């Protein structure tokens, strides 16, 4: 574990903040870290900024994420990582589909795909306009960004999966990368299968160790933290649990 110093905390949306810290982790797009907030908790977070000052982008949903939101420059947190296997971007025309804070997992992939000269379209979804993550960041990078909101306050009124279907209909991408609620990912996987488009999804499962030992993130035959968190459509198709069952901290199966 590396103890790192927070350099800045930035508002992204009204309930999402980015925390930057001094850590040159050389993360590959799609990798994550276990983030230790001393005396509070340790939680998995996608690495959303890399370089000398890496960053995570956090939706406040509970105690740990609240504590992350309240960090101040100079505070110290622990970082284990980079962990897991990331995206492997192939093809020229990429469609990145992000739901809510899941968009954070796509950031480095979008960045590196554009850097490699690929054409990247993004479909970002959120409940409402003010909660859309990285719309400006991705646009500034040079991506073609479209949005969907549940309340219709901006862009497509409805699910981001529907928006994605529209974009696919317009022009079939070579690869879809996605992160967001698992049922969204399950729907998107079906869409991709129908259109015979390769897809890679980053899953979020309850994680304790983050390094493939404890088994709490098991999804089907896969250990999400070590085998994933990014899985191909083919792998997802093998996972009977995907989109249907998750496990609570005790390992009991529950509906997604």
């Amino acid at each position, binding site marked *: *574990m590396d*103890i790192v110093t927070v350099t800045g905390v930035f508002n992204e949306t009204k309930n999402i903040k980015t925390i930057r810290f001094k850590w040159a982790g050389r993360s590959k797009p799609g990798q994550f870290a*276990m983030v*230790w907030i*001393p*005396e509070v*908790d*340790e*939680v998995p977070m996608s690495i959303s900024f890399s370089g000398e000052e890496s960053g995570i982008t956090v939706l406040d949903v509970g105690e740990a994420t609240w504590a992350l939101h309240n960090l101040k420059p100079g505070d*110290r947190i*622990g970082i*284990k990582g980079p962990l897991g296997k990331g995206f492997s971007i192939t093809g020229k025309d990429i469609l990145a589909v992000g739901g809510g804070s899941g968009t954070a997992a796509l950031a480095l992939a979008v960045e590196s795909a554009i850097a490699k000269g690929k054409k990247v379209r993004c479909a970002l979804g959120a409940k409402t306009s003010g909660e859309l993550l990285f719309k400006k960041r991705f646009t500034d990078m040079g991506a073609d960004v479209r949005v969907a909101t549940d309340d219709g306050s901006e862009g497509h009124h409805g699910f981001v999966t529907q928006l994605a279907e529209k974009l696919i209909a317009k022009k079939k991408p070579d690869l879809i990368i996605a992160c967001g609620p698992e049922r969204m990912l399950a729907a998107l996987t079906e869409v991709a299968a129908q259109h015979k488009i390769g897809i890679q999804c980053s899953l979020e499962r309850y994680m*304790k*160790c*983050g*390094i*493939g*030992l*404890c*088994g*709490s993130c*098991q999804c*089907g*035959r896969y*250990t999400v933290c*070590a085998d994933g968190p990014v899985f191909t459509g083919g792998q997802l198709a093998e996972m009977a649990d995907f989109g249907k069952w998750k*496990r*609570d*901290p*005790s*390992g*009991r*199966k529950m509906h997604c």
Partner: protein
Amino acid sequence: MAELRTRIAGLEMENPTMLASGILGQTGESLFRIVREGGAGAVVTKSIGLEPREGHGSPCLLELDNGILNAMGLPNPGIDSFGEEMAVALKAGAPVIGSIFSDSPSNFAALARKMEGYGAAAVELNLSCPHAEKFGLDTGSDPAKVAEIVSAVKSAVKMPVFAKLSPMVPDITAIALAAEDAGCDAIVAINTMRAMKIDIDIGKPVLRNKVGGLSGRAIKPVGVRAVYEIAGRVKVPVIGAGGVYTGRDAVEYLMAGASAVQIGSAVRERGIGAFGIVSAEIAEFMKENKYKSLNEIIGLARGK
């Protein structure tokens, strides 16, 4: 390749490596995969209790320079929902050993009965968790209590009963002998050692539970010693655990007197393929040194 097939307390194993309890052993599909893809000769489930338990809070696991420190705190879905996992695990064809923990002989017996009903090949009694109050060392360090639990389980089930011991006792052979006298069919040694890590930059213990159990390379010399001592005193087979990363580590345990080894922490570095890799390395060592059967190696350092 040297013959690695072996038989321990009636369990037929393709090779002498087993998955140690608590590593990925919580779901049927992961157990299945560790046999089929990982190449394990047998698998031990996560320790299962009567009720679902969430375990300790995070951080609950930490990599140290020469080991792994964990304070999972025995999270488990509870015995009642574990039948469906067992059903999947059994399809892999290797023996599935059900690990259980509890705070009383009668509850141990009840858990064992359910495990037997689920088709477990044997039951492993976790008498040695170093960081879960009431469920570990208090019991596991007292020969009388150990005997009581083993007896209770033995009279409840027909399958073999393994007792898994802690090294945090002055005389581990006394515990092993008590377990054997009470009828246990194999001894597993060792569980993790009570340990902790303080991050000095933060000035706090890293584990949420503060104290955890140390596994991995750091504890191998203690595990080998425990196996050596126990194997010199008991007649039942001994299964070694603690810091097995390579075939050479496994052979060290076998030479100390272990009939098989369990592998846990090494899965972090060698992946779930660790079992097949370690088995191949054992076979390679045997070939290079002209050993024909595991029996030539088992207990060799004891001068048997």
